[in-house]
């Protein structure tokens, strides 16, 4: 017997067509089976499909939004090494509660995921423990040390979907250009952190009046552009497929635009925190707002938001980075960087929609469709034949975030106590509910 779920009275968000409409979605056998862009009588549908009510599950969406589940590139799960901060189980539950149906995990664990054996361990753990799809990334160089490339071929065979040293910039351009060349031959996607490592060494904040007043070590926003410029030059040399993990400054955007226009295989992402917070949020040394790269000026934030709207920046990620209290309750310079974000991703992103910066289809283009496309996945869209990875959410439901309620083991969210709008009502992976409010 086939398993069929019918979502009626749904506000369907279709990022592919860039449109939304009220209608009905039918999922069966884990795939999207049919989309009817109108509200129809359920009895008519039963008759048309020759089924009875006990053979299908009907979900009345009551006019709430049904969208493709979020594909989140760059989630840090702290297995192996720091399971007390986050496990596949806790991250998976947080993802499900946040409408994230695919976590693309980072290799910056202890030790780094740089061998096929380590990757297989991760894949096995992830499948057993997490209720959502987990696609692991692997390190581009051994130990993320920027000296020797990893076994890219074996790692791809083991299931690595992309290669990245995360926030470690490969300073040696010779090493990086060889890794890019080798990756191109295998068709592997390389994800890099565009940053000039010398200029940004030791920085805890973006240079400007605020950081000067607080007396924090800073980095010029120009370091990001310099990093991107270098990487673009290497792409011209090597022709590799490249994704910049986080573009967060206005100054880096013209270079990105030129590189795309010149036909390089380049995409860019940004983090939800850089789109919704700015440097002033650090206030009196609040370390939960310490992220990497550091929060930027309001001008940079707005330029980044506009770049997402125009499509210049392709992908928004949560950059979910769990840190325990011990690594955050320190003087700002000593405190660890990063914030948890799987569960606050959608409500934070809804700020951009409510502020009129993005439409819902534009948002889901950046958080579902584009990341799926970049990784060659069939998900991230409301199309017949695509996986029934779905999120049902109320875009307007207000709440005040209490960090104690988060599923993540680490509670380091910058949104604690803040008013937010947008609640996930249910999350489906391959047509099966993995979260229901």
């Amino acid at each position: 017997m086939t398993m069929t779920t019918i979502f009626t009275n749904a506000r369907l968000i279709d990022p592919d067509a860039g449109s939304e409409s009220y209608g009905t979605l039918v999922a069966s056998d884990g795939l999207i089976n049919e989309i009817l862009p109108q509200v129809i009588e359920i009895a008519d549908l039963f008759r048309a499909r020759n089924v009875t009510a006990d053979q299908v599950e009907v979900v009345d969406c009551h006019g709430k939004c049904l969208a493709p589940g979020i594909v989140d590139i760059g989630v840090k799960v702290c297995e192996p090494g720091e399971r007390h901060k986050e496990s596949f189980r806790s991250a998976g539950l947080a993802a499900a509660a946040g409408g994230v149906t695919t976590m693309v995990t980072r290799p910056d664990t202890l030790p780094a995921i740089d061998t096929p054996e380590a990757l297989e361990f991760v894949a096995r753990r992830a499948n057993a423990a997490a209720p959502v799809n987990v696609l692991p990334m692997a390190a581009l160089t051994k130990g993320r040390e920027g000296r020797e490339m990893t076994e890219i071929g074996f790692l791809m065979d083991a299931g690595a979907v992309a290669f990245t040293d995360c926030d470690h910039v490969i300073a040696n351009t010779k090493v990086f250009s060889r890794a890019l060349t080798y990756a191109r031959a295998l068709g592997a996607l390389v994800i890099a952190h565009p940053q000039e490592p010398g200029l940004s060494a030791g920085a805890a904040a973006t240079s400007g009046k605020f950081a000067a007043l607080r007396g924090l070590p800073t980095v010029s926003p120009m370091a990001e552009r310099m990093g991107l410029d270098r990487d673009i030059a290497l792409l011209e040399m090597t022709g590799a497929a490249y994704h910049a993990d986080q573009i967060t400054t206005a100054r880096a955007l013209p270079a990105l635009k030129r590189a795309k226009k010149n036909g390089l295989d380049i995409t860019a992402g940004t983090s939800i925190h850089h789109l919704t917070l700015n440097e002033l949020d650090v206030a009196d040394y609040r370390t939960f707002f310490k992220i990497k790269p550091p929060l930027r000026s309001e001008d940079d934030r707005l330029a980044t938001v506009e770049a997402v709207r125009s499509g210049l920046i392709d992908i928004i990620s949560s950059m979910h980075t769990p840190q325990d209290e011990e690594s955050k309750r320190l003087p700002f310079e000593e405190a660890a960087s990063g914030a948890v974000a799987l569960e606050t991703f959608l409500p934070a992103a809804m700020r951009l929609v409510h502020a009129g910066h993005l439409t819902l289809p534009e948002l889901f283009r950046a958080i579902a469709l584009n990341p799926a496309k970049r990784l060659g996945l069939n998900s991230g869209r409301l199309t017949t034949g695509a996986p029934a990875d779905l999120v049902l959410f109320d875009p307007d439901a207000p709440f005040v975030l209490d960090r104690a309620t988060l599923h993540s083991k680490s509670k380091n969210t910058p949104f604690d106590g803040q008013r937010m709008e947008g609640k996930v009502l249910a999350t489906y992976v391959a047509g099966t509910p993995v979260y229901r409010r």
Partner: protein
Amino acid sequence: MAFRRKHLLGIEPLHPSEITAILDLADQYVDLNRRDVKHADALRGLTQVNMFFENSTRTQASFELAGKRLGADVMNMAMQASSIKKGETLIDTAMTLNAMHPDLLVVRHPHSGAVDLLAQKVNCAVLNAGDGRHEHPTQALLDALTIRRAKGRLHRLNIAICGDVAHSRVARSNLILLGKMENRIRLIGPPTLVPAQFAEFGAEVYEDMREGLRDVDVVMMLRLQKERMDGGFIPSEREYYHRYGLDAEKLAFAKPDAIVMHPGPMNRGVEIDGEIADDINRSVIQEQVEMGVAVRMAAMDLLARNLRAARAEPVEA
């Protein structure tokens, strides 16, 4: 407005009248300190702990003397040699200390914001004795008292702050305090040490020292913080001295009665000519040290009054 705060963590939150309140009381303590019997009992029965996570001789001695003259039981903890080296976090150190019921905690730490963090975790009054590059409020207050006594006022003066502004908490606190009291402030130094964003604080930034010193009432020199510099901010000390060291020739551009200040310790022949530093007609560097004790007595006295008042209040349900 009287000074009603629980802590003295920085100049930034203070109202000008609070600054004046501290300086007025400090004036009284200057008189006390010049008597034969230098004793008052404003802090009698209270425990003052000096926690210095960074080396200091003069500031720590100044706080110690201020506490002892007011009758406090003073304990010095050299944190560099202690449990921090054994891996204890700042918060754990604070909690441990808090359990010993100190009343006044004087803290210096190499990282900006560390003293704020510590203040959130203890029940006593906390005085910031310098945190990273952030603030050094008692230094700015003692500088203000020195200027007020030398110039007869603390407003509408042209004040030049010269040298290593980027690494200096003294510069930040002074910039904020003197700005609040409505003075015109000039920052003088090479652009590597005086970043352009300081212009946004309402200060005028000068790269040419002679131009910057023209007609100023106060010349405040800063120490070149060699220990905070990681890699080439200036080409050499001799070139720095040539362009930004205060000597008689450059000082001649300032008003004839301009005073010369330095927070110490001085690098003679690097940022200041020894003869200027020792010129009793121009240099108020020794007065600054004297005012330091008085200002710290005043600040601790006021914090202790607020602490006692808070403890006397009935606890609300």
